[in-house]
């Protein structure tokens, strides 16, 4: 029987969502056009050529290397694209993704990327045409709720702050706004430079929906140990305890 990765233990909804994120088996909820994604990222004008840092690999005459023969380059690497990034801040109020799970998703599912995990934000770097594709997956899928997750290249403050009155995550640079039609529009790119036009990133999820789709354990939603009052902890917490115990007892072995 072929090996099937388990990714993450536990029977809670958060455990299931974490498995979904890690496996890349994500539900697509909206369709934001490529041009809109490029506009929000702000690295190049939509439709313009990709600037490059080196000639295409086929023209470079690569050395005879078994690894290079084994690993097929990503489209961005093959074309010699620049390294570019997209960075997201996710609210601690039940945002669907959190930095670690964006990184797990990136590291497991995206070739040629460099995920960086921080406390309140998460950045993925990759070749330009690759990162555009990876960013689109994040923004189109259940990993992102437009109100609780925003692409923020700088001044990311907001993850651990209370929400605004309208349910939007606080943004010091006012990059997004909740329109009258219920959609969340980007009015600035990820570093706060105003856009020529508003970019629709979809409707926010309801509170019940984000509580269902979140990968965050919270005492007021799904606690780490599973249902409150149950006789046994959820497997997710037991597995974590197990890892901590093993690491504490045998992690340090100088011999």
């Amino acid at each position, binding site marked *: 029987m072929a090996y099937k990765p388990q990714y993450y233990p536990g029977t809670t909804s958060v455990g299931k969502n974490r498995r979904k994120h890690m496996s890349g088996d994500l539900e697509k909820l909206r369709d934001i056009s490529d041009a809109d994604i490029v506009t929000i990222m702000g690295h190049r004008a939509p439709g313009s050529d990709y600037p490059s840092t080196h000639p295409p690999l086929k023209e470079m005459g690569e050395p005879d290397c078994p690894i290079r023969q084994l690993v097929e380059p990503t489209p961005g690497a093959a074309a010699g694209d620049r390294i570019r990034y997209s960075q997201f801040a996710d609210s601690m109020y039940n945002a669907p993704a959190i930095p670690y799970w964006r990184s797990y998703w990136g590291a497991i599912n995206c070739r040629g990327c460099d995920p960086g995990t921080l406390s309140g934000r998460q950045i993925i770097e990759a070749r330009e045409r690759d990162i555009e594709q990876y960013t689109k997956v994040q923004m189109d899928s259940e990993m992102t709720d437009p109100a609780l997750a925003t692409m923020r290249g700088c001044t990311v403050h907001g993850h651990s702050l*209370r*929400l605004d*009155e309208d349910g939007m995550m*606080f943004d010091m640079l006012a990059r997004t706004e909740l329109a009258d039609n219920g959609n969340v529009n980007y009015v600035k790119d990820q570093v706060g430079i105003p856009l020529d036009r508003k970019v629709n990133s979809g409707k926010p999820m309801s509170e019940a929906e984000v509580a269902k789709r979140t990968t965050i354990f919270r005492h007021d939603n799904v606690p780490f140990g599973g249902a409150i009052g149950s006789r046994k902890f959820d497997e997710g917490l037991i597995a974590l305890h197990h890892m901590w115990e093993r690491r504490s007892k045998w992690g340090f072995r100088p011999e």
Partner: protein
Amino acid sequence: MVTKSDTESVQIEIFPQRFLKPDTAQRLLDEIFQGGGILRITVQGPNLPRMVPYGPGKGLPIEEHKNMLLELADQALELRVKVGRIWLELDSEDRIEGIRAACERMLPFSFTIKRKQIFHTKPTVSDYAKYGGEVDDKRILGMIDPKAKRERDMAILSDTGGDS
């Protein structure tokens, strides 16, 4: 333990579940102010910069944060923070229930009110640097943070302190 006999005035913090829009903050402050008995008010929250502070867009103006005013008793102050907490000093403990009722009328979400010592009572080193050795009006202690400008961020509405 703080008892009524220990101190005449009381200090409370209103902590709403969500950040307040400028309109909501204005309505709430109007309602609170109308109730009387206010000695000091401070609104606190994360900074709303007037221009992009970091990154490739550094220096670009943030139009959304301009022209936000809080008006109380014919005085207007430019709102430079997202209102997250409101600190009040009241002339009596009996006023707290009125404040709670005002919050219940004006806030569409839950909130907590905590009584505690908020404003410091002795000048700090920052106060010494800011105001000098002698502070004429002790009410200004703890009202604004060290980097704020007194003329821009603080207003004295009455020399008597409240309507009581």
